[in-house]
């Protein structure tokens, strides 16, 4: 949703936006991000999913990490990749989305009211309908 991007962009500096776009401009990194939104993959599991070395996957994860899209957590011998799980951030995101959806709806309602002739007002041309 466009609003999501606007919200993110509003909160970030130019440099951070560059990092964010750089991070998202690569298909493998987008896929890693998708997987870490859905679950908590380990770096070695991710490495098994792509035709590239463990080190190369680690580099991709580091780019995502720098952009603030994921965090890395050591769990035993595994490195777990997680998207941001902070509750407040999620609450904000969910409510921002809801707000964006309703702002769009209100705007469309408003346009519709202008468009649909008022049957009680002959000046709007709807009197004969």
């Amino acid at each position, binding site marked *: *949703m*466009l609003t*999501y*991007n606007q919200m*993110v962009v509003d909160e970030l500096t130019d440099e951070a936006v560059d990092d964010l*776009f750089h991070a*998202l*401009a690569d298909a493998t990194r*987008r896929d890693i*991000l*998708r997987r870490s*939104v*859905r679950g908590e993959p380990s770096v070695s599991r991710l490495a098994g999913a792509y035709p590239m070395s463990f080190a190369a996957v680690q580099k991709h994860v580091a780019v995502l990490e720098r952009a603030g899209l994921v965090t890395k957590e050591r769990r035993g011998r595994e490195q777990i990749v997680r*998207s941001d799980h902070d*509750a*407040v951030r*999620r*609450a*904000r*995101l*969910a*409510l*921002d*989305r*809801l*707000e964006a*959806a*309703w*702002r*769009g*709806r*209100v*705007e*469309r*309602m*408003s346009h*519709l*009211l202008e468009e*649909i002739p*008022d049957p009680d007002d002959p000046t709007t041309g709807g009197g004969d309908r």
Partner: protein
Amino acid sequence: MTVTSVDKDFDDLTLTLIADFDAPPERVWELWADPRKLERWWGPPTHPATFERHDLSPGGGVSYYMTGPDGERYGGWWQVTSADAPKSLEFTDGFANDDGTPNPEMPTTEVRMQLAEHGGGTRMELRSVFGTREQMEQLAEMGMEEGLKQAVGQMDALLAA
């Protein structure tokens, strides 16, 4: 601007939005009560909604689907808790399976909509509450994926230009 105020409560998971329209409450109510009008604003332009069932009487129900740009369908439903034309409407809004039946795995929101005359027009107060924090997080996750898809789509468009 039509939207007068927006209040978000992260603890109560509640969005309260106030909007003013330059039309009497009866006409704003019609936008909710007439499914053909409702279809023209419920879904975003990229995902127009089609209402297959629309019964706003208390205990009644509404079912609809939104159609995406690639023809994919997203089903939704309302369970109407109370309706008082042209003043208020309360319903639960949820996601539906492909056959239109409510999908219990998916989050729901409680919506309360109130209309009142205000300054020669209508003031609409809309309150939307997530059922639980888990449901809200589920929606946020979906939003993140969706936002990601959009961001990627926009970048693709930029790169192709």
